[in-house]
Structures are given as C-alpha cells and as structure tokens.
C-alpha cells in the first residue's frame, strides 16, 4: 500500500479524504505497531510476546470460568463506535456469553441526540444538509475540522458558499476562539464562552419579535423559550452587540432555507443539551427542519453510548464488579478525564484484554494484548449514516502477526460456549463469513430484487451500498431551556478553559502518525507539540512570550504547556487542543505536549464537559519554543493571497472581465509546447485550510518527516504547504489560506542559476528537478521567490543514517514510482510527474493524447472542496484552462515576471462590520 484515496462513488467522501484519512497508512505501517500477541504473566511483569494459541487458550479458560459460574455480567466488552458488522458481532458475542457490552466515542455529540429527543421526540442526530442552506449559522460547530462528518461538510460548505451564477451563501460562525472553521466564516462573531444558548435564544426572540418565523410553527412554544432571555442582558453577557444579534437573526430567518448547527466546545458545556435545544428551535422557527435539518438519514454517532455509561462502567470497575474487560479499539485511559478515576478503576480489574494494534496507554496496562488487524488488512463495514454502508475487503497482507478481532472473538466465544463451527450463536468460522451473512440482511433492505451473490459482488466493487432515505417529518413538542450562561466551576477570576478536538489528531488517535505531527495546525502553524492559546492581553499581564512554559491549573488537575499568544482569542478564555500528551502510544506520540483532559471533571449526564472549568495560569520560567514554520501571518502588503469583495466578484463574473494579469514584455520568444502545457489553478475561496493535500503530497512523493527541531529551523520538507495569512485588525482578522507549492514558472528564476542543469524546463511546461544531477549549491532555492524548494540537509533516505525518516516498516509505504532523495540534493513539487507519465503511457497505449480528467495530482485528488484543478493549459476546453481564465485569477508575485503555471483565484469576501 502506497497511498489512501477515497472511493469516488462513496456518497460521503466522493473520493476525497481529510488529513487524518490521508495519514491512515501510518497506522498499519507504524514502526511502533504491536507485532504479535502479548501477555503479562504476573502483575508486576512486563508484556511479553506469547503464541496466539496460548493467548487464546488463556482467555478461553478465564472466560469459561466466569460464564460457567453464571457470572457473565462480570465480563464487559468495550469498543469504539462500531456501526457495522463488527458492532453487531460484539453485541451477539456479549449476548451469547451473557456479558455486558458498551461502546464509547470521545466525541459522541450526544447533546444533539438528547435535544432531538426532547424537542422532536426522535433519539437521533439528524443529517445537516449544509449544501442546501443559503445562510449557515454555526454555534461553535467545527464542522470543517472534526464535527460529525468534516469531509462531507467541507464539500457541502463549498457548494453553498462558493460564488456561482452570481449567488453565494453566507456563513456566520459564533465562537470565542478563531478556529479553522471560524476563519472560514464570512462573519465570525466572537462570543463569551458558554453563551451560545443565550445567543440562540436571543436570535430566536428577534425572529419572533419581528415576525420572521416560518408559517405554521408553534409560536407559543417558541415564545416560551425565547422569553427566558432579553436582548440587552444577552448582549452584555455574551459580548455580542444587540445590533449584531438582530442582524444575524434577520439574515438567518430570511435565508429560506438557512441552517443553524451547534457543536465543538460550545456543544459540550454544562448546558450543552439546552444549547442544542435552542438551536433546534431556531431551525424549527426558520422552517429549516425537514429541509436542511433532516431526520431519517441520521448520523451513526446517534448510536454511540452516552458518556454516562463510561462513568458507570468506571464505577463498576472501581467497585470490583468487573473481572474481565475486553477493549476493542478503545483507549479510555487517554480519552477520559483523569478525574473520572479510570486509571484507579482499571487496577481493580483482574484481566484486561486489549485488541488494540498500537501500544496505547490502556494497552500498556492490559494483561493480555491480542492485536487486531488494521482496517486495511481485514474485512469490515461501516455505516456513517442511515442509507450509507461502506464495505471493505483486505487490501494488503498483514504487516505483522496480528489477527482479526472478529476471528479471535468468534473462535474464543465458541470454545467458551463449547459449540462447534456451524452451530450455536457464534457459528461462523471467521469474521468474513459473519460479515457476508450480515450483508444478506442489508441486501434485502437495499436491493430486494437483486440476487444476493450479484448484490455482494456489486457492493464489493462499489465499496458499499447506499440508498436514499426519506426525510422523517417531526414536530416540536417541548423546549426546555436555561436562558443563562453555562455554569463553569473553578476560580471565578480565572479564565474559561476551552478544550477542543484537534483536526489533526482528533481525540488523540492521530498522534502516533508522524505526518500528522509534522503537518502544521493551520491556524497556529504549530507542529509536533501542543500549546495553550493565551489571549494577548493576558499574556501581557503575565509577561508571557510565545514558547514560555505555563502551568495551567483547574480544580481537577494541572498541566504545563508552552504558550501560544493569540490576538484573537476571547480575553476571558484559554484554549488547548486535545490529542497530544500521550504517555505511551509509540515514539512519535509519547511525551509530547500535554493532555488537557487532565483538567476536566468526570463526564456528567450531558456528556464530556469540554467547557466546564476555569483555570489559572502561572508562568513557570521555563521555555519550550514552538516549531512554527510560518514566520509571520502578515503579508506585509505583498498581496500573496488576494481577495475581492462579493459585489466586485459578481460584477467581474457578469462582465467576464479578463484576469488582471500584468503584461511582462520579454526580449525572448515565448516558449513552445508541442503537446501539453501542464498547469494548475487553486481557488483560495474554496480552500478551507484542512491540510489534507499536504499529507497526500507527502504520501505520494515520499517526502520525509524531519522532526520538531528541523521544522522550527526552517528545514521542513513539505512540497506543499498551507499558508495562513491575516489581514485587518489583529483581534478580528480576515484569514486567507494559500496553498503554496512549486509554481512551475515559465520564466523560472531557479533554472538558469543551476550550474549543472539539475533544474530545467521541460517542453510540457514543467519545472523539472533532476535529483541525481543536483550537486547541492542551493542557488535555486535562494533565487526562488516563493521558497518552495526543499533541500535534503540530512540523510533522510538511507536506513543507516541517524536521520532516517522511514524506519521499518514505514519504508513499505514508499511510492515505488518516486525516488527517495539522497543527502545533499534539492527537491520540490513535480506536479506528480509519475502520474503524468502513467497517464501519458496509458494514452499512448490507446493511441491518443491525455484527455482532461485522465489524471489528478495527489493534492487535487484529495481536496475535499476541490479547490485544486490540474490539467493541460494548451487545451482551451480543459477545466484548468477555463478556470485559469477566471476573472478572479492572479499569479502570486506576478510583478516579478516569473509567469507561474499556477493561477490562484481570489477569495471572495463578504462585507464586515455588521456582526
């Protein structure tokens, strides 16, 4: 396996992947992945390799002992949310043995589910049709980062938001912090932490007061809820002006349809459920329910167990009521707040069995480790929402001596029950057979007319089965709301702690993947570490500089992190991303940063309270500079990333104005391109800064990972980087994302300075770099105004080197079509020349030229918003040629006369100052 790409037919991703999906390959090929079954023979001893047969035998004996005594309830099976056959198998297995079964997911959005039940009487998380909305109003939902289904949302967001035929949707986002999602908003409204419910109700009140509600809604119900707040006190408490609230209310109500969503940190306060209730009411009032808020195609997250279950389990364990704990892809020691007492409770369990294939914190404490196959090595299915089931078959041989958890459980279960293969509740010889059996039921539901064998073949080929799910109509029934800011415990003088999921590491699962560690967090551009985001005013008061270590203390614990000084964070808050701070989990994750869950209280009835404490900051005096590759977010008036206002963009589009490219007279004749001139356009209006392309490029092109020190010293090797530029007031900037890669200039400054022709121009318009000709003068990179060339300062490629970037078995991921570069040579984006060559070969076999759409570069392929278009500029009908003629097109630093082959399309900005 060389690279992961989405299934173009899949209704959720349409072939694209997020940053974490792109990095998925570093799971099976992780050098710290567990290589076989392991057992702890005595309590104090270490985990030692054990034969699979012995391990299974041991587990069977212990399980049988309990089951025979009728103490099956003392066995607990815990998994992450498994929405497919494995989940059902676990249920069946637990049922057969009389064991307890639960799943838990760190981010389970259960507040939405509770609110849906309360308001609409439906225990589900609806599908949010963002693409249909004219105005998207988000209460802290980081839907472009982690919330529910970010890839799908990103695509939908571009569809609703991009200027098309003179129309463009508006996105208003309320959040105390300028998150990646907030940075993509047309209007980012900064509110005081925990005032989302208040604001939602105030907006509702304006809608009602001004009679903007949709016809036929239950006004009495709405008014009862809305009357809990008044505009003035809301404005005071939230810091959002009454005018702004009115403006939002009017924009939202008149959208027809609009869409209000809530999540992120806002969705996890003490009043999380009430916040979601208020948001549901907003959608209801504006007539969005059934249009953009769709019950029916519900999200799989609605099936995750409530957090309170995890807390109950912890208590049972602590009380010694659990004898055997089976963990299937669950790492509760890391993913639950320490205050919940899981670490202590775990000690009381005599036998902890982990099926994890990574040495995570919980697995390190397990007595028996039975590493599961990676999803790419095994059969599996997954249903992200109703009506969509993905089907996976093994795509690679197991890297190590791992076994499918399904296989092991079936075999162990049968042995415990004493039933032979083919009989009893666990009769299937292997998980594959179980899965196929499950799909018989799916076949009946999805395609009753097709014979099963045909359906199965087709589903395998298609990668799953999908169908339209009708929208279930719902009515608002009750509206229990609070109407006051969320309660936060701790020192009232302290700062509200915002703990938010990282778009790179999610709940921490990504932290062992070096690609994710090295990809900069787009908004801070920090790599390899975690940080505490401190408002500039607070930093000034404490005398903090960026990189100073800060002790963050809450009533539940304290951690130490380097400070990241933020001009834009709400002055009453500090923010820490989740995902780092592992104490185990392999070399890339261990002892890096700190886990902010240590500061949080135990989960309550509303789920994991990410917004629930106030913290105090103390400067420790130590320093740990952050590795930030971007020197400054200020463009210094160089107009690298450009924007136009919406009215101007509309006018340009209507007039079809030619791009305002400066003409650069040259003494030389224009170059000739016999067949192709490869080129690219990047629409920075669509770029959301998700970094998926960055990892796709790393995977495709064998780009080495260099480590924190080297990144900090300007030696990162990314061929493609996402730059974050900010304009306007520092506290409330306009953010522009600019994907920067080799511009393949027609008049490339890097080429003539190379003394050995290692850099030259092909007759297809590519700026070629011949690695084995390069002698490393680095003149080209000095002369590249974009500095997109990357020099091999160290020997990343050879296994004997101390800088080797591909330790066994990561080297198995290397793309065989791409050279691993040697020490001392320059490298850079090739526009995936290996793909161009393959496409040309293919076309030649068919006796034709490469057609538009025959090939995609790795970055283009994975872009969830399809901001990148690549192709042949010589062909005037190609997508790239058309889009490069866009009136929004420009070249970065075009005044230098480099004539890049990459055209950027300006971002379209909305008017500011209303919110």
């Amino acid at each position, binding site marked *: 396996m060389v690279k992961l790409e989405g299934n173009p037919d899949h209704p959720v991703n349409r072939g694209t992947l997020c940053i974490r999906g792109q990095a998925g390959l570093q799971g099976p090929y992780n050098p710290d992945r567990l290589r076989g079954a392991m057992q702890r023979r005595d309590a104090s001893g270490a985990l030692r390799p054990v034969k699979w047969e012995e391990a299974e035998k041991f587990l069977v004996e212990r399980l049988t002992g309990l089951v025979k005594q009728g103490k099956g309830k003392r066995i607990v099976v815990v998994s992450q949310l498994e929405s497919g056959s494995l989940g059902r198998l676990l249920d069946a297995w637990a049922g057969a043995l009389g064991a307890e079964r639960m799943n838990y997911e760190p981010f389970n959005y259960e507040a939405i589910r509770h609110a849906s039940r309360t308001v609409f009487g439906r225990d589900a998380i609806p599908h949010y049709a963002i693409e249909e909305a004219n105005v998207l109003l988000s209460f802290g939902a980081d839907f472009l980062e982690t919330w529910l289904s970010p890839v799908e949302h990103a695509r939908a967001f571009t569809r609703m938001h991009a200027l098309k035929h003179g129309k463009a949707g508006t996105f208003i986002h309320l959040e105390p912090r300028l998150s990646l999602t907030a940075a993509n908003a047309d209007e980012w409204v900064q509110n005081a932490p925990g005032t989302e419910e208040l604001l939602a109700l105030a907006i509702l009140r304006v809608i009602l007061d001004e009679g903007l509600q949709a016809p036929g809604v239950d006004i009495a119900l709405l008014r009862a809820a809305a009357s809990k707040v008044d505009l003035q006190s809301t404005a005071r408490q939230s810091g959002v002006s009454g005018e702004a609230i009115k403006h939002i209310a009017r924009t939202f109500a008149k959208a027809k349809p609009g869409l209000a969503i809530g999540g992120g940190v806002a969705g996890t306060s003490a009043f999380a459920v009430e916040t979601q209730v208020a948001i549901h009411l907003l959608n209801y009032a504006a007539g969005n329910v059934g249009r953009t808020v769709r019950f029916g195609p519900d999200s799989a997250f609605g099936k995750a167990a409530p957090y309170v279950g995890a807390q109950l389990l912890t208590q049972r364990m602590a009380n010694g009521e659990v004898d055997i704990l089976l963990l299937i892809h669950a790492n509760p020691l890391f993913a639950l707040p320490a205050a919940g007492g899981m670490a202590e409770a775990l000690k009381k369990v005599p036998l902890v069995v982990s099926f994890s294939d990574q040495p995570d914190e919980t697995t390190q404490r397990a007595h028996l480790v039975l590493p599961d196959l990676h999803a790419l090595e095994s059969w599996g299915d997954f249903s992200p929402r109703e009506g969509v089931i993905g089907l996976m078959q093994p795509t690679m041989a197991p890297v190590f001596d791992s076994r499918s958890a399904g296989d092991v459980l079936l075999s162990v279960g049968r042995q415990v029950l004493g039933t032979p293969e083919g009989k009893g509740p666990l009769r299937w010889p292997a998980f594959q057979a179980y899965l196929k059996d499950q799909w018989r039921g799916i076949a009946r539901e999805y395609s009753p007319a097709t014979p099963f064998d045909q359906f199965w073949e087709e589903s395998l080929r298609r990668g799953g089965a999908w169908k339209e799910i009708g929208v279930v109509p719902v009515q608002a029934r009750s509206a229990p709301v609070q109407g006051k800011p969320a309660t936060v415990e701790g020192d009232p003088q302290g700062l509200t702690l915002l703990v938010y999921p990282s778009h790179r590491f999610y709940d921490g699962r990504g932290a062992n993947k070096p690609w994710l560690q090295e990809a900069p967090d787009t908004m801070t551009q920090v790599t390899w570490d975690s940080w505490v985001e401190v408002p500039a005013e607070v930093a000034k008061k404490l005398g903090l500089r960026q990189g100073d270590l800060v002790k963050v203390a809450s009533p539940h614990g304290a951690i130490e992190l380097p400070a990241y000084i933020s001009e834009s964070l709400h002055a009453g808050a500090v923010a820490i991303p989740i995902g780092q701070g592992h104490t185990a989990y392999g070399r890339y994750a261990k002892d890096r940063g700190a886990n902010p869950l240590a500061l949080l209280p135990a989960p309550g009835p509303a789920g994991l309270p990410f917004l629930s404490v106030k913290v105090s900051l103390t400067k420790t005096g130590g320093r740990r500079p952050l590795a930030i590759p971007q020197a400054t977010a200020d463009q210094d008036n160089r107009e*690298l990333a450009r924007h136009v206002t919406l009215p101007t963009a509309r006018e340009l589009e209507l007039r079809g104005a030619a791009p305002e490219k400066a003409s650069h007279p040259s003494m030389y004749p224009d170059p000739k391109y016999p067949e192709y001139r490869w080129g690219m356009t990047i629409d920075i209006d669509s770029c959301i800064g998700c970094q998926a392309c960055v990892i796709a490029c790393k995977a495709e092109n064998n780009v080495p990972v260099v480590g924190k020190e080297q990144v900090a010293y300007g030696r990162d090797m990314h061929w493609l980087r996402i730059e974050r530029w900010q304009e306007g007031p520092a506290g409330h900037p306009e953010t522009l994302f600019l994907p920067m890669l080799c511009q393949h200039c027609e008049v490339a400054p890097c080429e003539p300075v190379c003394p050995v022709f290692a850099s030259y121009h092909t007759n297809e318009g590519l700026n070629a770099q011949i690695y084995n000709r*390069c002698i490393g003068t680095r*003149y080209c990179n000095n*002369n590249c105004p974009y500095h997109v*060339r990357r*020099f091999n300062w160290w020997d990343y490629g050879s296994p004997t080197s101390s800088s080797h970037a591909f330790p066994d078995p990561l080297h198995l991921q290397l793309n065989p079509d791409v050279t691993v570069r040697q020490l001392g040579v320059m490298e850079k984006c090739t526009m995936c020349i290996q793909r161009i060559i393959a496409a040309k070969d293919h076309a030649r076999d068919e006796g034709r030229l490469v057609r538009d759409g025959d090939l995609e570069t790795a970055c283009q392929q994975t872009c969830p918003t399809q901001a990148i278009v690549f192709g042949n500029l010589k062909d005037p009908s190609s997508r790239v040629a058309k889009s490069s003629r866009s009136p929004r097109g420009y070249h970065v630093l075009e005044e230098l006369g480099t004539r890049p082959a990459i055209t950027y399309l300006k971002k379209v900005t909305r008017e500011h100052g209303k919110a």
Partner: protein
Amino acid sequence: MNQHPTRSSAVRQPTYADVNRDVIRTLWAPSPTYFGWMSVVGLILTAGILAWTWQIYIGMGAAGKRTPQNWAMYITSFVFWIGIGHAGTLISAILYLFRARWRTSIFRGAEAMTVFAVMTAGLFPLIHAGRMWFAYWLLPYPNQRYLWPNFRSPLVWDVFAISTYLTISVVFFFVGLMPDIAAVRDASTGWKKRIYGAFALGWEGTDRQWRHYRRAYGLLASLATPLVLSVHSVVSWDFAMALVPGWHSTLFAPFFVNGAIFSGFAMVLILIIPMRRLFNLYPYITDRHLDAMGKLTLVTSLILTYFYVCEAFTAWYSGEHFERASLFWKATQNYAWAFWLQYFCNSLAPLVLFSRRARTHTPTLYVVSILVLIGMWFERFNIIVPGLGHDFYPYTWGIYYPTVTDTLIVIGSFAWFFILFLGFIKVMPSVSIVEVKETLPHPVKAGHH
C-alpha cells in the same frame, strides 16, 4: 633614484649582495616562535578539517543553513577570500604596469597572499556544495552521457573565472619567483640546492632569458589586470544575477571589485607589518611603503562608502517595496549589529588614515586593517544572510544561527591561509631579490648614476 626621506631612511642603502644576503637569510633555521605559530595555526586547521569531515559524513545540516538562508558563512567567506586575493594582483600587475616602483618590496608577499587566498576561497564552493563529491560536474569534461554544465549559470562563470584567476596568479607568481629561486639555488648546498635548482628550471639570467622574460612578464601583467577586474565582477554576479532584493543590482560589479581591493590592502598590511619585524626587512619595507598602502586603503574606503550610499539610495529611490523592506530590516532588526558594524569598520575607521602619522604608525595601521577585514567579512555576510532572511516571501523569513561545525570550518579557513603563508615565507624569498635590486642604483665603476 628618488628616495623620499623617511624616518627609517637612516638605514644604510643596501648593496646587491646585501639584498641577496638579507632576503635569503629569511629562509634558514626558523625560530621557536615560528614553530609556535605554526603549531597554533596547525591545530586550528586540524579542527577545521575535522569539522568538514563531520559535515561531509552527517550532511549539510551540520552547518547552520536553512530556508531562506541557503547560503551563509561559506559563501561569505568565499567572497571574502576571493576579495583578499585582488589586492595582490593589483599590486603586482596593475602597479607594475603603472611603474609604481614602491611596489617592489611588497609585491611578492602580496602575490603569495593572492595565490593562497584564492586557494582558500576555492575550497568554499566545495565545502558549501551539498554533494561536494560530485563537484567535478561543474567542469566541462567530455563524458558518455553528454552532460555539460549550464553556461548560463553564474556559478559556472565562477568556475571559469576562479580557475583562470588561480592559474594566472600562480603563473605570474612563479614567473616572478624564478630568478629569485635561482639566486637561492646558488646560495644553497646539498639537497636544498637540488630542490631549488629544480624549481628555478635552470635559470641563469642570460640576456636571451631576460629579454623574453621581461616581455612575457609585461604581457602577463596586462592579462592579469582585466582578469582581476573580471573575477570579482563575476563573483558579484552570483548575487546580481539573482532575483533577491538587495542583490539584483547593476552596482554590484564595481562595488565588489573595489571592496575586494580594499580588503586586500588591509590583508597585505596585516601580513607585511609582522613580516618586516620578524625578518628585519626594515631597509626594504620602509614607512614609505606603509604610507602608500595606507593611502590606497583610504581611497578604496572612500569609494566603498560612496557605493554604500548608492546602494541605500537606490533601494529607497526605487520605491520598490521589497528592496526597501529588505534594507530597513537589515538596518533595524536582528542583524542590525552586523549592519552597523560594517559601516563602522569600512567607512568610519579608515578615516583615521587621513592623518599621515596614522599611516606610518604601525599599531594604528594594524588595528585599522583588522577592522577593515572584519568589516569586509561582515559586508558579505550582510549581503547574504540578512539579505536572504527578509526577501520576497514572508512565510519563510528567518534567522540564521551558526553552528560549531560551520564556525570551525570558517576559522579553519583562516588557519589554512596562514599556514600556507607561514610555509611560504620560510621556503621562498618573500621579498623579490631581483626587483629590489632593480630599484637600487646599478653598481658602476665610473661613480655616476
């Protein structure tokens, strides 16, 4: 003979035999002090060689370079050393053509300095290259794959300019030495006689030899003169041909040539002042020589200051945002100390040379010369490191920090230069026997001249 009265003119005018004796005397039996210096310099050189070895083994990352400073101290030192060489050629070739007779007693040392400085400079492109083991790819040699260098690249111009410069300097140096080596040969015995004999190529000083020698020497001087001007122009084009703000300037060729000569004069002073003392060469290197050198240093300093003003003025007057931002950043931000140090050393300190007393007061001359060397090294540093640090693209702006490895290599290059020079003064006549004699009155019987 028109001799200026100087404070040391009380020294008796030497005869031909005195010249031979005084100069050849410098070659015998080194003193313990000499060995002491040799060991110190040798140790530093060893450290430098070890550092380079480490860099080749572990990778270019051992040197503190990064994006955007893909070039740093190595190229700084390269330009510095090439520049040092220029004064030698100027003194030996250009002043020869102008018949400036005062050059005779110092040109040999200056020429040796040129050869060694170019040898030192020539190392830096190798040290600097990411894959120095393939540096020969820069040469146009026939090969199976028809791979040729890119003659459009300023680095290939460098290769040609510098290898020509080194070759011509060595030829010029050797041709000048030939009659002197013959003199040493005739004054020595045994194996030394054989070795010097071999290097003298059988020189006898016949009328025929002198006839062609003089003609060829003149031609070599006429070739070396445009060459020396071209070499630093070509070196300056390494920068001027690039796009980088602050580099892309037509000013660079004369600016670099003048700066080179300026720093070279300082280095000549640094070398001859102790040499005069060590070898008691007062009759030959007189205060008159120091005075003339001081004047030249002052003149080149003033010209350089003019170029500095031009450089800053152009950056400002161009209205170019990139140029202005780069200059402003250099002058006020992280590297401001280096920026102002350059002006102090190169423009202010040499002003004391307006005073005649300062020009003949060796400690003052020495201090000014050292300051000039520091200033000129930092001038190139300021062009390269801060220049690259704040160029077109704000994303990659950055600060370069030297490492132990590259610092040792740069210091080692000074050791390499001095060890060559120290070696030279003990094996070859460091003052030209023939040319000094030429400036003396011919021995005549009739008693008139």
